[in-house]
């Protein structure tokens, strides 16, 4: 049981929460995630990246977007409420060293997991260029925090409501064309965005690390539900990752697998709607 000690709505459906979790705060490193359940018996286990941690306060920060039932319910938790199940930190930490110049690309909510990595990279002495992208101005998160770290910050929106009207791949390509080219790129965001970032950097041979958010059940290597093709190998994201070489990841298969239960979840909500409608009718 972990107490919610702070909650903030970052945009229409994006929330930030600080949770009491002293052990995780002490052990976690950049790139790792937690899994939580909103109900111990019937809740599903959802993975969320640790966006930040405060060892003194004994807390971790998560940032999440409402995408399904669990995140919708999670958003209803108030300060003082307890999360029934929280486990972590899971996954391998990001390998941090002074690589030289690193481009950090965050798409939408992906800026949250990117932030601690960019922070650690900066601390290790890297020249950090950050690209943040979102559909529109309202969906840009952590701009101030990223600005504080980055040597160079580029903001893009799809609709041009803020920063450059472009997809993140546009400035990424320009940066790859610079001389000298960056030593490395890290892209975190929706799978399609990571796929195109990887395709953008590939011709320039700029090593690109991506952080995958597959379906997970246990998060400890026991089920294989999180598996992805990386090069010729099958990897388990929860124990071998979550970070992999973006040039080797089979994004198309990963995206298909993310949709494994799409139809089921959809059916379920529809059937709930039907149930509601039937109930209303009965009441009348």
């Amino acid at each position: 049981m972990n107490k919610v000690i702070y909650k903030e709505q970052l945009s229409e459906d994006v929330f930030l929460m600080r949770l009491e979790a002293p052990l995780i705060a002490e052990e976690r490193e950049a790139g790792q995630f937690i899994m939580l359940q909103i109900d111990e018996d019937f809740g599903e286990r959802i993975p969320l990246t640790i966006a930040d941690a405060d060892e003194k306060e004994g807390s971790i920060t998560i940032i999440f977007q409402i995408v399904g039932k669990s995140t919708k319910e999670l958003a209803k938790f108030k300060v003082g409420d307890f999360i029934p199940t929280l486990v972590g930190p899971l996954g391998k930490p990001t390998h941090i060293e002074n690589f030289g110049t690193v481009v950090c690309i965050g798409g939408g909510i992906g800026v949250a997991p990117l932030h601690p990595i960019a922070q650690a990279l900066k601390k290790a002495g890297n020249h950090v260029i950050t690209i943040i992208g979102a559909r529109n101005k309202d969906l840009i998160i952590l701009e101030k925090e990223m600005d504080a770290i980055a040597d160079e910050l580029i903001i893009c929106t799809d609709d041009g409501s803020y920063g450059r009207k472009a997809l993140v791949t546009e400035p990424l390509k320009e940066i790859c064309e610079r001389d000298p080219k960056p030593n490395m790129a890290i892209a975190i965001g929706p799978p399609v965005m990571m796929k195109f970032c990887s395709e953008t950097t590939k011709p320039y041979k700029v090593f690109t690390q991506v952080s995958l958010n597959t379906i997970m059940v246990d998060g400890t290597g026991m089920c294989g539900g999180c598996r992805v093709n990386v090069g010729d190998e099958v990897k388990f994201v929860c124990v071998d990752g979550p970070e992999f070489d973006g040039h080797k990841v089979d994004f198309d298969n990963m995206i298909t697998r993310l949709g494994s239960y799409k139809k089921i979840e959809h059916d379920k909500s529809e059937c709930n709607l039907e149930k509601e409608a039937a109930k209303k009718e009965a009441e009348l």
Partner: protein
Amino acid sequence: MSYHSPEKIQKSAVENLNEVKKKEVLKPKDRMAIPAQEMPNQDPVQRAKNLEEVSIGYSAEQAQLEAMRCLQCKKAKCINDCPVGIDIPGFIKEIADGNFQEAINIIKNTSLLPAICGRVCPQETQCQMACTVGIGLKDIEKAVAIGRLERFVADWERATGNVRIPQVKAATGKKIAVVGSGPAGLVVAADVRREGHDVTIFEAFHKLGGVMRYGIPEFRLPNDIVDEEIETLKKMGVKVETNFVVGRTRKLVDLINKDGYDAVFVGTGAGLPMFMGIPGENLVGVFSANEYLTRANLMRAFDKDHADTPIYASKKVAVLGGGNVAMDAARMALRLGAEKVSVVYRRTEKEMPARNEEIEHAKEEGIEFNFLQNPKRIIGTDDGRVKAMECLRYQLGEPDASGRRRPIVIEGSEFIMDVDTVLVSIGNGSNPLISQTTPALGVNKWGNIVVNDEQKSSVNKIYAGGDIVLGAATVILAMGEGRRAAAAINKQLSDELKA
């Protein structure tokens, strides 16, 4: 064997018992003549649609009759072949005499989880294989049903509502950590706690029990039974930390160095399900049996109206493999609404590692067995979902290293099987989390922790046992290792206390 209703079985048991009781003394010949008692089961047609336990358990009359079949051998071979050395003739005699409490007390002297072992132990390859009666009647099926008797008295005790809580000695001030709450961990916790040491179990999941919770389904081992065993431990004062992944939440060695534990037992079980390595294995609709069963059991996806964790809606399911896990996955798929479930196995029924009983039950429920077949690739639809499987036929050749005849592919025998779901159940590697984060810990090439005959690992004060040492094994072997580890830990601690 055809299905007999529980009523019919009970009726003949009562009649037989009355007959037998007429005799003053039972000679071995008379005992051997008592019919072996069949386990009453739920009707196969009905049970394939529910999750309730398949086997109902012996009645008191059946238990007594079955117990009377035991010859009380002087050199009871059954004891030698029991991994924890239960006094089998001893407890069986008490059942025959109607002293059920005494019977369970005898079992509990050596075994901690009789309700569980009685249900899931492979007795047919252990105690019952050695049983004189079975050998005499030249039919292993007719050996004394030791497991069913064990289960009977354990259930009897639970039904009385006052399960004996083992005595705990005065506090010693020593504390030990148990990592993982499968059978190995639970046994260590109990045995070490009895000596008065402080015990904390650390479990990665939100629920305790290990494979007994997330793997073995409700219809074979009801959760209530696992819960009850855990309650007993808690009543003994064992502490529990769920949602705690040792290696991640805390490094293994930090439990000793930072948190002051005097010893640690690692019972983290098998892990990393293996896949076939054939094309199409990452299509939507291909799952490891572990994933499928975890969704259904631990995450309760069978309760579709309440659970948030979804489970794939399947019509035609192929299960790859021939072990207990494969049987459980197949039977679970059926219960979750699949229309047709086929087990695809490279060898023949004789080589299947699954327990006979599971195979029989699966057949009764309508599971199809495709022997001497193996998939070559899995074929998907345009949107990446399983639609069929291309298989090859096999024949048996010479015996291989495991002593089983090696399957040889028949060239050009490819054929297509229509399926929408493939459950892969061909074994597990070892859980890498602890070894990844504990470089000093010695592991073999399969990643299993290497221990000496006292279950000690290469790191001082760290012990290990169960599947993480043995590779995927059994509940009773895990328990046996747990007992040995607990004895060694207790010795370490008492030496330290004396020093």
